[in-house]
Structure formats: structure tokens, C-alpha cells
């Protein structure tokens, strides 16, 4: 690359060379026709990409090379800098330093539309679709005004069929399942004939069966020469799908490898610097029923909520019950109804230690032995601007902490200091603000805060979401220890592996309904995956052979 081009060779020059989003007549020859000089061998090359934010270096001298037709995974924990790197490639974040080479030419990608003009497409973790519009209309929104809808519908159909994606262009988005919504996003990306497709954690909203179908599409796409950047922290998926794997940790690249040749433990070591310790699981005889949910039904509180219908289950002392499910199937609503944040349920629908509590607020239920760790740590489980000691008062509201209406500041500092010490929270002390802690440390503090209350029933949502592996293992061990001490635990998580690791029994939530419970020892990932589609009424024999499960409804 002659240095004279550096910095001036912007996308505006290159957009005439490559196709734009409206120029959909060019076909796949793009993928093969332009190998004329040495650098052309690479589709995308990043050299020394650095992005600093006020508090953190998100990307520190990142090098990354993606070849044409390669499925390249970027593996890393939450906060490793994967998303920032993808945003830089997609033009929505500008790097402070470093060079980006696209098909051998240095480019500076000013914004996402420039990235699309180059042939870079991205499917985000969270969809940007309008529920009230059809598939075709949604896709047309990103295209020039003079696009004819009927022609576009045909193009959508052809493209979808070509890659084995079932999609009906006339359907309204609100009738689609989450998996189908993702297909809309993928087809939208494919219509621009991308040379590089970026997928950000695409499987977090999919059932295990839908994941397999997504992989088939991606393999086909790659075989035609389109490069794929696949962002994930799930080791098994990467080993099954990807050709190359770049591992990031703390904003740096810690290694590049062939994932098919590596063990999961090896990848994990690259990702977190250590192997996660295993949890010992001992069968125990559960005790008395502590929490009973009887035919809990709740109407939607807002149009995009999920209604709960006829939920029944029991939670006994000394057991961990896991609730699996694809996000948006009523987990939020169920948690709020159980915790007392949403006191609209029938009084008798939720029975806590033989006492109907459906209409009681969170403080009342807490006095009766309930503990709750919400999935949002900042703003719900803790107030970011308050100190850890003050945040203790959110759930510790007894005479120990409040005396005649006045806060006992010495007492709360002491308890907070104890939690910090016992749960190994890295914090500046009880007076550090909650917002100053990292996600994992704050989660340890919140779990510790609830454990210290010695609850009879503890409900935990996404216990290890966005938490580094070391802290996650510690949190899981604490939960198991609490179970062994006789507490009844309900854990809601989207990570199936985690539920299988710690639960005694499993439930599945789908479309606002909850499945019957199944012993963990009797459950298989396949079966739970099928149940996640809402199909638990089928005889179990059918589950092993069912090829095309109906998918989960999109909230």
C-alpha cells in the first residue's frame, strides 16, 4: 500500500468500485473477480486498531485478518472489546489509531452507510424491526425510496430460498418468532450482497435447534466466498462452526487459532486466562414446600410485554429449580410477579411459606423470607450513585439497619464491609459507589447482600450475566452452598449450561407458560431445547426425532 494513499483514500472514492445497496443486480462474481495484487488475498485486515474511552482502553492495538469465504470468530468475555471492534469495522465508532484494509486497500469507514457501500453488513444482537410492518416493508425502509415493493418481495423470496431461510415476505413482523425475525435481519443483510457479514451473538435468542439451521445458512454463505465475522462467547458453537478464531481479553488479542483443533478448555484458557473450576453436585432430598405458584395468570402491562398464563410450580427447601427459556418469553413478567415488583397477581396465586402474597409489595415479601437478585444490577439491584453501604438498605430493612426511622450508618457500613470481605468483592470499601464496581464485583456484592439476609427462598435472575468466569464460578458455588444450607432457590437463566450445572430440577418458560418440571438427571439439552419452543405436551418419544420444531413466539 503506497503511503500516499493513507488517510485520503476514503470510502467516497471506493464506493464507485464496489456495489452499493441499491445495485442488487451484480452477482457473486464480486467474491472472486478482484484478486489482482498480493494484498487482495485478504478480505479485511486490521492493523493496530486502538480505541480509548475515558475509563478504559476498549481495543488495544488489535490486529485481525479475515480471508474471503472464511468464518472467523471473535471470542471473548463480556467487556473484552469485541463489540467495539465490530462497531469500528461497521463504521459506527471511529478508532483512535490503526489502519483498516478492505480487499487490500486502506479505507477509512466514516459511517455504517459507507460500510454498507463497501459490502459490509451486520446483524445486530437486538433487532431493529417495526412490529406493525410486513417483512418486505421493513426491508424496504433501508433501501432507496423508489424501490418497488412487489419486486423487492420477489427478491426477498429468492434470496431466502437460496440460503435455505424460510421467510414469507408478506407476514407482519409481530407474527414472527424470534428466529424468524433474525432471518429477516439476515436476509436484509444478504440483499446488499455483502462480502463480509458480521453477526453479534446471534444465538442468544435461538433454541438449540434453530442454532443448527442458522449454521447451515452461514456455511452455505461462506462457501460462496462471503466472509463471516462471528462474535460469541460460546465455545461449543465456535468449535462447530468457525474456521479461525481470534480470542480477545481485556481489549487485547490473546491468540489466534483453529478452533476445530483446540479443546474447549484450551479456548477457555485463552479467553479468561484460566480454566473454570467445576462444581460438585450432590443429590439431596428436598424439604418442605417454600414457594408455591398456583395458576398464575397476568395480563400484559404494556403492549410489548408477555402475558403469563396458568403458571403452576413448587419450590422446596434445599433444591435449586432452574427456569430455561429464550429471552422475551415471560421471564421478566414472572420475576416481577414473584418478587412483588408487580403486585397485580391474585393473592392466592403466589404462596410463600403457606401465606398468600400475590398482592404484597417487595418489602412485605422480603420480611416473609423472600430474597431476589434481579438481572439488571445497576438501577434495579443497586443504585449507581449510592455507596455500597447505602445500597444495603434496598433489601436490609430491619431494626438492625433502621432505628426509629433513622438509618444506622455505622451498622450498614459494617455489614457492607462484611459482605465485601466474605464474598471477595473488589471495591474501594463500603463507601465506594455501586456504579464504580465492575459488573462481576457488583453482582458478587448483590448476591452476597441477599445471601447475608439468610432468605428462605431466593430468586436469582441471570446470576452470571456479563460476569467474568472466575466470579461466575464463585457465584454459582455460593448458590449451591445456600441450597445445601436448606434455602429454596429459583434460578432463571438463558445459559442452558449453567442451569444444567447447578439445578436439581428444570422448568422451561415459553410464550408466558411454564412447562412441567423435569429432574436435571433426566433432562437432555435437546429435549429442553424443544421445550423452549413450547412443545412439552408432546410425548417424550417424539422429541428425539422431531426435525423441524415450531419456533418460539417473538414477544
Amino acid at each position, binding site marked *: 500500500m503506497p503511503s500516499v494513499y493513507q488517510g485520503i483514500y476514503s470510502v467516497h472514492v471506493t464506493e464507485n468500485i464496489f456495489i452499493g445497496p441499491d445495485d442488487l443486480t451484480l452477482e457473486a462474481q464480486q467474491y472472486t473477480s478482484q484478486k489482482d495484487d498480493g494484498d487482495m488475498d485478504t478480505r479485511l485486515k486490521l492493523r493496530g486498531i486502538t480505541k480509548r474511552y475515558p475509563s478504559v482502553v476498549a481495543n488495544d492495538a488489535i490486529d485481525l485478518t479475515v480471508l474471503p469465504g472464511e468464518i472467523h470468530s471473535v471470542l471473548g468475555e463480556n467487556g473484552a472489546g469485541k463489540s467495539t471492534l465490530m462497531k469500528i469495522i461497521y463504521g459506527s465508532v471511529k478508532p483512535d489509531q490503526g489502519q483498516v484494509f478492505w480487499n487490500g486497500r486502506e479505507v477509512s469507514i466514516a459511517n455504517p452507510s459507507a460500510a454498507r457501500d463497501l459490502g459490509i453488513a451486520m446483524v445486530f444482537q437486538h433487532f431493529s424491526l417495526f412490529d406493525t410492518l410486513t417483512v418486505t416493508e421493513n426491508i424496504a425502509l433501508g433501501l432507496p425510496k423508489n424501490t418497488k415493493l412487489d419486486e423487492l418481495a420477489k427478491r426477498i423470496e429468492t434470496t431466502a430460498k437460496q440460503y435455505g431461510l424460510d421467510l414469507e415476505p408478506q407476514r407482519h413482523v409481530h407474527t414472527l418468532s424470534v428466529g424468524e425475525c433474525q432471518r429477516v435481519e439476515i436476509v436484509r443483510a444478504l440483499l446488499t450482497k455483502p462480502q463480509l457479514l458480521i453477526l453479534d451473538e446471534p444465538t442468544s435468542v435461538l433454541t438449540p435447534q434453530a442454532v443448527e439451521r442458522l449454521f447451515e445458512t452461514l456455511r452455505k454463505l461462506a462457501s460462496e466466498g462471503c466472509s463471516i465475522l462471528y462474535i460469541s462467547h460460546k465455545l461449543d458453537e465456535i468449535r462447530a462452526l468457525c474456521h479461525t478464531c481470534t480470542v480477545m481479553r481485556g481489549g487485547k488479542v490473546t491468540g489466534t487459532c483453529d478452533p476445530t483443533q483446540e479443546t474447549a478448555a484450551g479456548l477457555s484458557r485463552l479467553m479468561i486466562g484460566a480454566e473454570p473450576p467445576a462444581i460438585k453436585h450432590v443429590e439431596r432430598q428436598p424439604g418442605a414446600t417454600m414457594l408455591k405458584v398456583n395458576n398464575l395468570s397476568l395480563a400484559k402491562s404494556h403492549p410489548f410485554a408477555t402475558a403469563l398464563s396458568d403458571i403452576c410450580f413448587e419450590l422446596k427447601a434445599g433444591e435449586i429449580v432452574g427456569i430455561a427459556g429464550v429471552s422475551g418469553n415471560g421471564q421478566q413478567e414472572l420475576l416481577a410477579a414473584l418478587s412483588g*415488583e408487580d403486585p397485580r397477581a391474585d393473592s392466592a396465586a403466589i404462596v410463600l411459606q403457606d401465606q398468600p402474597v400475590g398482592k404484597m409489595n417487595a418489602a412485605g415479601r*422480603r420480611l416473609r423470607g423472600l430474597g431476589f437478585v434481579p438481572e*439488571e444490577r445497576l*438501577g*434495579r439491584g*443497586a443504585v*449507581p450513585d449510592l455507596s455500597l453501604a447505602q445500597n444495603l438498605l*434496598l433489601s436490609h430493612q430491619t431494626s438492625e439497619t433502621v432505628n426509629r426511622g433513622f*438509618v444506622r450508618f455505622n451498622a450498614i457500613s459494617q455489614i457492607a464491609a462484611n459482605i465485601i470481605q466474605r464474598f471477595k468483592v473488589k471495591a474501594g470499601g463500603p463507601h465506594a459507589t455501586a456504579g464504580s464496581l465492575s459488573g462481576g464485583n457488583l453482582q458478587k456484592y448483590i448476591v452476597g447482600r441477599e445471601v447475608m439476609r439468610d432468605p428462605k427462598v431466593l430468586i436469582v435472575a441471570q446470576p452470571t450475566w456479563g460476569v467474568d468466569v472466575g466470579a461466575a464460578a464463585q457465584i454459582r458455588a455460593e448458590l449451591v452452598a445456600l441450597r445445601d444450607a436448606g434455602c429454596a432457590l429459583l434460578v432463571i437463566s438463558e445459559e442452558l449450561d449453567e442451569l444444567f450445572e447447578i439445578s436439581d430440577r428444570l422448568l422451561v418458560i415459553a410464550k408466558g407458560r411454564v412447562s412441567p418440571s423435569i429432574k436435571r438427571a433426566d433432562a437432555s439439552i435437546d429435549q429442553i431445547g424443544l421445550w423452549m419452543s413450547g412443545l412439552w405436551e408432546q410425548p417424550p418419544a417424539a422429541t428425539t426425532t422431531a426435525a423441524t420444531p415450531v419456533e418460539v413466539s417473538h414477544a
Partner: protein
Amino acid sequence: MLKLEPRTNPSVLMSWMSPVFAVLLTVLCGVALFLSLGKNPLEGLEVFFWEPISNLQGWAEVGVKVAPLLLIAVGLAVCYRANVFNIGAEGQLVLGAITGGWAALHLNESSTGGALMIALVLIAGMLGGMLWAAITTILRDRFNTSEILVSLMLVYVAQLLLSYLVHGVLMDPDGANFPQSKLLDDGFLLPIVVHGTRLHLGILMALLASGLGWLFLSKSFSGFKLQVGGMAPMAARYAGFSSRKSLWTSMMICGALAGLAGVCEVLGPVGQLTPTISPGYGFAAIIVAYVGRLHPIGVIFSSFIMALFYIGGELSQSRLGMPNAITGVFQGILLFSLLACDVLIHYKLSWRK
């Protein structure tokens, strides 16, 4: 291009220095204003910042203005910390003046006053302010209306109501048809704190309110709940703190204090009901509350500054021939300077191409 970039660690010191800088900026703008009007800026500053406090009488007059400003600002600080944006304290003040004044005029027919009578009248005033605040609160609580709009609109309703009353049933029959009530007997007026001045008991009540407000917000569990509701509503629901209770508590505290400020004006410097019982104390107190960092002790200092502006504004009319609007101009500059300084606590300016 100039850009605002978020700071990693907003300085705590600067969040307290920001009001100081804002006052200094306001003074600078004042100098520019005086210069552009062809006045001697030094003379102008002297009128605003020295003359009001050059003697005991001046201090007392400042205290007379501080009393209502401080009472209301403490109430507003409680409201704003609970994220309840009550900007209608002026209306609550007027209602307090109406109910308190009415009670005083009524009682004055059969009594010559005394401590008990004054206490009754003060309570009547507080109830009036609470009643006015309750209208806003009920609408917000039951129908989720914006308390900003409702409380603001109720200010004008209250002012018109006062005007209607002093033009009608409460008008002094021997008052030559002036729109004002009878003068109250001395037994109904608030005791004077510093002999020979107009400084009345209201200033002590205001300082007491400030102390109690600090105790409530910083030490009590109810105050904690209220602030959690303001900072993170989801966390409040998680903790089981009632948002309705916070709304009602904060609005009632503010209504009572604003009503008290109103009735203290009637029983203090004014001595009767007139159509313009307040020179905008309820609105000025919003600025006072923010300049005082929504801290019940901090507002003591900011209400002092605001009182200086009021007196300086009056003096500059007679001494320098400045227009009546000068007080409002200074209030506005102070608020804008504060907002500008506050932005720079959390952001830094940088030049990027």
C-alpha cells in the same frame, strides 16, 4: 468542531464549586450589563453586593427576603431529590397566603391575636399550600399527568383567585376601593426578631426547616426511600419503596413550606392581603434550590445570594435608574451560568475535526 466529551470522574469538589463559579459569572455579566447601559460597573456592583449588607438594617432586610426563599427552597430540594418536578411553589405560596390571610382576618374579628392565634393562622397557611400541592399530586397519582405543567398552571389560577378575593369578599370596606384587605392587628403579626428592623420570626422558622430538611434527607429512612425513588425508580420498586408515598410526602412537605412562606409574608412584612403578595419567590426558589445543590443546608447560602439580587434590584432602580426587570435578569443569568457550569462538571470541551 467543538465537542463535549464525558468526563471519567466528575469532580465532587467542582460540583460544589460550580455554584460559586456561576455567581462569579453572573457578576461578570452584571459588569458587562452595567457598562453597556453606560453605568459605572463598580457603582452597580456596590449597589448589589455591598450596600444591602453594609449595616444592620440591610442585613435584616436580606433576612426578610431569605425567609420565604429558604422555606420554599428546602421544600423544592426535597421534591427534586424525589424526581418530582414541582415548579408551582409560587401558587402554593399564594394559596398559603390566601388561607392564612383569610383565617387571620376572620379570627381578628373576635380576637386581638397572640401566640395561639398566630399558630392557628400559620397552620391554616400550611394547609392551604398543601391543598394546592395536593391537586397536582392527585392528578399525577391517579391520571399520570405531568406535575410540571399542572403545578405551573395552578400558579396562575392561585394568583387570579387571590386577585378575585381581594377585589371582592376580602376587600377592606374602608379601603377606598383599593384591592387589598384590612390591615391585621399587631397581635396577629409575627414577632420581630431583631429590634428596630422588619426581620420577623419567619427567618428562624426557615432555618429550622433547613435543619429538619437536612435531618430528613441525610439521616432518615423515609428520606432515603424518597431519594432512591428519584435516582432509580426500578431500584425503589425492587426494594419495595412506594413511589406514591414518595410523591405525596415530597409534595406535601413542599406545599406546607411554600404555604408557610406565603402566610409569613402576610403576617410579616405585608401585614394584609394584597394582589401581589410575592415578588416571584416561588420561582426564584427553584434557582435557589439548584444553586444550593438541592441540599437543605446549601440552600441557606444560595437564598442569601438571591435575596441580595432582590434588594440590589430594588436599590438599583432608585440609585442608578435601572429598570424594574433587573432582578429577573440577574436571576436568569445566574440560572444559565449554573447550568453551563454544571455541564462542565460532567463533560469537557474538546476540539475535534
